[in-house]
């Protein structure tokens, strides 16, 4: 009976503590130019904080011959990204490395900062991730056309296929190409939002069940937080890796 009452209380508490409230955008500094709302919001604030933390992390820590912990952390991340770019793009990919590295650092830091209580997760809004994915998409397309001219359109036409089949296959390839920015952005946004909502829901259970029953969801939350750290790093890596894969299609035209 106690658990029943507890469960009811938990339900009420979870309803009272809206798990989606954390994703709300607040205008901190309303700015309006014409009909465009350019307000400085909490999302903008956290983007600036993210850039600040990235700068602090990369500029600090020293640059000694025998690295300390901080410097080692920087070097490991740098080497991981540089070896990934190098493996996939080869020598031609070198100009794109700064872009990929900046993207990775921004997403990783934004994801990690989002795990700090009372913070705001920039990457949990699809418009933010979509803007980044669209930039990658446009960049890859422009690079493809610059490098191969109209020959880049061959990407849509699989080789060694009869022209009757191509009537069906070319539209499929084109749709597949245009879904890239969407799947890229949806993956990151959905992972971040689902994780944070889940954490908030379990936090509501902890409060609802109180001192007696609250320990089980609390233990679950500890485990989930660990998982979220993994997801935050993995999603940043996946985003950077797919960026490199799309750039690879544009530069080397593999298939």
């Amino acid at each position, binding site marked *: 009976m106690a658990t029943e009452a507890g469960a009811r209380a938990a339900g009420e508490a979870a309803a009272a503590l809206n798990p989606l409230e954390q994703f709300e955008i607040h205008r901190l500094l309303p700015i309006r130019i014409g009909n465009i709302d350019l307000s400085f919001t909490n999302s903008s604030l956290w983007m600036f904080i993210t850039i600040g933390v990235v700068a602090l992390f990369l500029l600090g820590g020293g640059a000694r*011959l025998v690295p300390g912990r901080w410097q080692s952390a920087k070097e490991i991340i740098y080497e*991981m990204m540089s070896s990934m770019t*190098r*493996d996939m793009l*080869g*020598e031609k990919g*070198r100009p794109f490395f700064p872009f990929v590295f900046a993207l990775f650092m921004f997403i990783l830091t934004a994801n990690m900062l989002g795990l700090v209580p009372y913070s705001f997760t920039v990457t949990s809004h699809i418009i933010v991730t979509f803007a980044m994915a669209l930039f990658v998409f446009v960049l890859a397309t422009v690079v493809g056309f610059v490098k191969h001219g109209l020959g880049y359109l061959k990407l849509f036409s699989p080789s060694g296929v009869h022209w009757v089949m191509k009537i*069906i296959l070319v*539209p*499929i*390839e084109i*749709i*597949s190409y*245009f*879904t890239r920015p*969407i*799947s890229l952005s*949806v*993956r990151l946004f*959905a*992972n971040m939002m689902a994780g944070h909502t889940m954490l908030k829901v379990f936090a509501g259970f902890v409060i609802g069940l109180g001192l007696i029953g609250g320990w089980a969801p609390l233990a679950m939350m500890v485990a989930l937080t660990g998982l979220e750290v*993994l*997801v935050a790093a*993995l999603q940043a*890596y*996946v985003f950077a890796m797919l960026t490199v*894969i799309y750039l690879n299609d544009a530069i080397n035209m593999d298939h």
Partner: protein
Amino acid sequence: MSPHDRQEQDDLDALGEKIRRSKDRHGRERMDGARHASPLGVAFRIMTELVVAVMAAVLAGWGLDSYFGTWPWMLLVFTPLGMAAGVLNVLRAAKALDDADFGQTASGDSARRKNNDAWTKDDEKDR
């Protein structure tokens, strides 16, 4: 270069060699482990590829219909194409994962090594 400096340089070279060997022994395993650490992540990745393609195609068909007033023909054309594109995306994603896992073929390895050498040489030139 004084004998003392040369001694220090030799020590550093020996240390570098030791670190490199240790990294070769452990580094590869750790990196590969990180790559397929989360089966859930892989499943999620494959799922989004499929769902997003269908959704995008349906929305594109719907949008074109409302723009040209051809309801429901564009939707009927685009939906199956989107499903096919979704399957194609899933196959590509699965192939990419396969390559990441088992792709250490002889040719790929040598190509990679060549790239690495080119970069390293350039790095040294920069210095």
